[in-house]
Structures are given as C-alpha cells and as structure tokens.
C-alpha cells in the first residue's frame, strides 16, 4: 500500500471512509522510518509507542463520531518544540538528557486535533545553521542524494517529509530555516507572519525573528496544518490577537488579477544557472495563470544578511544565557567553583557554531559597541521593512528564489561561516520584516530540487497559500518523490 504518497486531505478522507485505521496508517509510517532513518538520520527520537497510543485514541474518536479533519494523521515535530515527558534536545549536547516538563502550544494544538506524534526531528543545534551539520546528533542526509545536505536548520523535518517518513512536519524559521531546507529537498514550507503561531514551549533562538510553521509536500497540506497551529495564545507575549483566516476555504482563490512583484534585487546578483532559469519559468507560469507581474525594488535588501548577523547573534547570546548548568541541561564534571561550572558546562554543552554566535552577540552588545552594531542593525531593519511595505502598496505578493543553489555537498561549507550564512540571502528579509513567506518546489537542477519563494504582506498567509496552490494545480514538482523512497 502506498499510503505515504497521499496528501493530508486524501489521508483524512481514507480514514473517514475506514479504508484503513489510524493504527494501520501510523504503522505504515513507523515501518518506513525503521527502514530509512538509519541512513537519513532525520529523526533524533522515534516515539513509536506514543504514536500507536495516539493512533488508537484517534480510531476511538473516529468510532465515537468526534473525529476532525486531522484526527489520525501522523506528524513529525522538530526537536525544538517541547513535548511533555519526551526528550527535547534542540540538536544540542546541552539538552541531550532534557525531558520537557510541558507541551509547547504547537504540540498541544496538534495533539488536541487528534494528530499522531511519530517523533522528533533532527536539526541544526539551537536552529543555528543552514545545512543541519551543526547538530550534536550528526548531519541529516538529503533524500535526493545522500552525499548532499538537506538544508537547515529544519533539515530533519525537511528530510522526513521529502522521503515520506511523515506526511507533515513542523519547522521553525529565524532566517530561512523552514524555506531553505524545503527548497533543498523539494517540498513546500511556510513561515507565517511574526506572532501568528505561538512560540510558547518553542526553544528560543532570536526572539524578534523566530516563528513556527509547517513543512509538507503541498500548499494544501500546509494550509490544513497551519489552520490548527495558528492563532492567539496568551502564554506567548508576542502572539497576535487577531482572527485566523480559513486557509483551506480560501485555498482555491484564483490567481487571475493577482499582482506579483518581481524583486529586482533578488535577480541581479549571484542568481546564475539553472536556479535562475527555473525561477523565471515560474514567472511565466504565473503570467499564464493570469497574474500581473510587476518589477519592484527593495534597495536595502542586499543588507539583510549583515543585518541579521548582528541581530540574531545578539538575541541568541541573551536567550542562551539560560543554559547555566544549574537548573537543566549539561553540567561539567567536578566543577571547582561556580564560574568554572558555568564556563565548562557551556563550553562542553554547546557546539562550535552556537559558541561562535553567542560570542558574536556578546561582542556586539558589549559596552561601547551597542550603538555601532545592534542599534545600527535595527535601523537598517527599519529601512528594509519600509521598503517591503512600499512594495506591498503596488503588489499583492513578492516572488524570488529561495536559495542561491540546490543542495550542496556535506562538509562543503562547514569551515567557512560567511559562505554558509549567504545561503539565506533570499530568505532573511522576510524574517527581518516579520513577513509571511513560503517556498514551493519549481523544478530540478540535474537530480536536485529547486524552490521558488513567495513573500506576502503581514497576515497574508491565505494569499500565499492560494497562489502556491494555483501553481501546484498546474505542475507536479511537489508530487515527486526521490526514487529510493517511492
């Protein structure tokens, strides 16, 4: 049976028709995980017993007539989301033995909707990375080519969806961590507006940028899951009190008349070769669907990456100060005194990239440097945000590439942080401005998938999803599965 090739809506219909039970569906995915995870290293923790218990509860709910649209659908959680009673590592040695004492809101809402927890996915340590190579648990392999990275930081979530070891996975995106891996493994991924999804119980990296979202084969799948996790949560002080649109109902809004802005700055530097050609073909496809394409300019956008590498490390150095070896997390052996305990616990518990970012952040926030770095970066951020805002007075959505290249070789960029940081050159702008953005597959460069990015105005998720869905209604890139995982 090829249940793993079905969409969320098809799986939901199959469960409703009793073609298969939630237990059978769950077992199908657990079997696929047992077979392929040793190679992909995409799950850090597989929660088989919990999954089967969830599935039995889903079947009982179905029998009782209380099932919803997601009841019995399996899901993988990025290991950044706290799961009550289940190890939550954030890809770090620091949290190797951390058993979360409560559920994050994202996990809680998906459980309440009757979904089945398959496991926790591998990720760059504390979500800091673009290749999944900074994980304490080792890199994830790209299902399309095991010698390539899956992107990051949500590399495990990307790989489990691409290899169909889960129908859907959660992700988080601080500078592109949902969209870039989605592009590199040929799936869809949406980063909602800042504040749209609660971050309660989501381990913090950079608090003015972090946002949770969904990774799945199609925009339609993303819509169904985003519906469940979006919405106000009083436990997150950045959560926005504003109604959530009906994403599924608005999914079929036609593209005709939609004004799509071609961001000039996205197309003029470093976008050579097949990625550029594939993204240009998407523009033609939207034109054929009746969209109006308009060139727009955001001149400060090329400053996104340097702006981000001040703001994000500054906030990370503050957020990660909570890991002190006292209340939870790794503690060094035989500390001489309190200072030794702090320094060695943190020195041993954090990996090289996390330490690099903590130190960058510590420096830019230190006395005498705050104005020159953090304040300056926040001013440039205002410039970038204002340019996006001006663009959205002319167009409904913006379009550009997601990543400058397809998946690169494992190990290719680990020794050169700046080159690694530039992977996110097209994605960071949306985080700096708090905008919703999504990546969808748009073709192949050789055997490797390529993604295209759509960016919307604040709370424009519905329009992003319907534009992506319109494209996916006339293309089949989102249905392609790597040959080894069919």
């Amino acid at each position, binding site marked *: 049976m090829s249940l793993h090739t079905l969409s969320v809506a098809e799986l939901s219909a199959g469960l409703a028709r009793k073609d298969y039970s939630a237990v059978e569906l769950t077992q199908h995915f657990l079997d696929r995980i047992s077979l392929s995870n040793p190679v992909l290293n995409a799950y850090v923790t597989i929660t088989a017993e919990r999954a089967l218990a969830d599935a039995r509860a889903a079947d009982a709910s179905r029998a009782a007539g209380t099932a919803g649209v997601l009841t019995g659908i399996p899901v993988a959680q990025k290991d950044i989301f706290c799961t009550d009673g289940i190890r939550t590592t954030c890809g770090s040695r620091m949290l190797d033995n951390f058993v979360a004492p409560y559920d994050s809101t994202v996990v809680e809402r998906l459980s309440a909707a009757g979904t089945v927890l398959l496991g926790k996915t591998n990720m760059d340590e504390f979500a800091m990375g673009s290749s999944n190579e900074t994980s304490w648990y080792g890199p994830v392999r790209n299902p399309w080519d095991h010698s390539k990275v899956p992107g990051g930081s949500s590399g495990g979530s990307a790989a489990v969806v691409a290899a169909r070891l889960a129908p859907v996975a959660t992700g988080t995106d601080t500078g592109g961590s949902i969209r870039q891996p989605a592009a590199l493994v040929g799936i869809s991924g949406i980063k909602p507006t800042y504040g749209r999804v609660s971050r309660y119980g989501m381990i913090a990296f950079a608090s003015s940028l972090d946002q949770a979202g969904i990774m799945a084969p199609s925009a339609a799948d993303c819509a169904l899951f985003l519906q469940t996790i979006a919405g106000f949560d009083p436990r997150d002080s950045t959560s926005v009190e504003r109604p959530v649109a009906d994403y599924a109902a608005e999914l079929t809004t036609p593209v005709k008349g939609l004004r799509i802005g071609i961001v000039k700055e996205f197309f003029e530097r470093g976008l050579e070769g097949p990625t550029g050609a594939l993204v240009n073909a998407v523009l033609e496809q939207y034109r054929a669907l009746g969209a109006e394409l308009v060139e727009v300019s955001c001149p400060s956008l090329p400053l996104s990456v340097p702006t981000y590498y001040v703001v994000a490390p500054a906030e990370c150095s503050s957020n990660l100060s909570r890991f002190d070896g006292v209340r939870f997390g790794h503690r060094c052996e035989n500390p001489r005194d309190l200072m030794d305990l702090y320094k*060695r616990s943190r020195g041993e518990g954090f990996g090289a990239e996390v330490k690099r970012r903590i*130190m*960058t952040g*510590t420096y830019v926030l230190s006395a005498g440097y705050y104005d020159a770095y953090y304040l300056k970066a*926040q001013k440039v951020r205002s410039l970038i945000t204002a340019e996006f805002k001006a663009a959205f007075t002319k167009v409904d959505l913006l379009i550009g590439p997601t990543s400058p290249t397809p998946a690169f070789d494992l190990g290719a960029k680990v020794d050169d*942080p700046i080159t690694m940081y530039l992977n996110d050159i097209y994605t960071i702008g949306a985080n700096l401005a708090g905008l919703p953005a999504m990546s969808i597959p748009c073709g192949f460069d050789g055997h490797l998938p390529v993604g295209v990015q759509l960016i919307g105005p604040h709370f424009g998720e519905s329009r992003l999803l319907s534009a992506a869905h319109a494209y996916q209604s006339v293309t089949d890139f989102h249905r392609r599965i790597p040959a080894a995982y069919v």
Partner: protein
Amino acid sequence: MSLTRPQVEGIAHLARLQITEAELPVYVDSLSKILSFVEQLSAVDTGSVEPMAHPLEGESQRLRADDATETDRREKYQANAPSVSGALYIVPRVIE
C-alpha cells in the same frame, strides 16, 4: 575589523564559555571575518531612521495581569536539574 587573542578571550569570559587553546585561533579568525562582514552596515545612511522596536507596526509587547496562574510543578521541573536537594538547586560553594 580584526580581533586579537586577548579580545576573544575577553568575549568568551563575558559569555561564560570555556574555549580551548585549539579553538581559540579558529574563533579569532572567524569572529574577525564576521565583524568585517557586518561592518558594511556602518556605511548605510540611517540618519533619521528609527530603530525597529517590533516587527509588526503598532504592536508592542503585551503585558498580562499580575495574577498567579501557574500551578506548582517544582518536582517535575527539578527532575531535569543536574543536582538538587529538596527544593534547592546545588552548586559549588559560593561563599568561602
């Protein structure tokens, strides 16, 4: 922008991170490169621009009423601590 070894040692101390002798030159090099890279921001004219205070216009940090809403889950929370004694977290002697 080039950082010196003592500067990086100072940053590591502020960040409460033990850095090994082998790691130190790697951080001197990479932190210098990162600071040189972000240096380009200083050339941007931001004269009258207000620094961003919140990614969403008009939004600000919401405050809740000062009511106790959490239940006592001390034992569950302490289960993750490396060393506890009763309600206390144990650390090396601070006062000699």
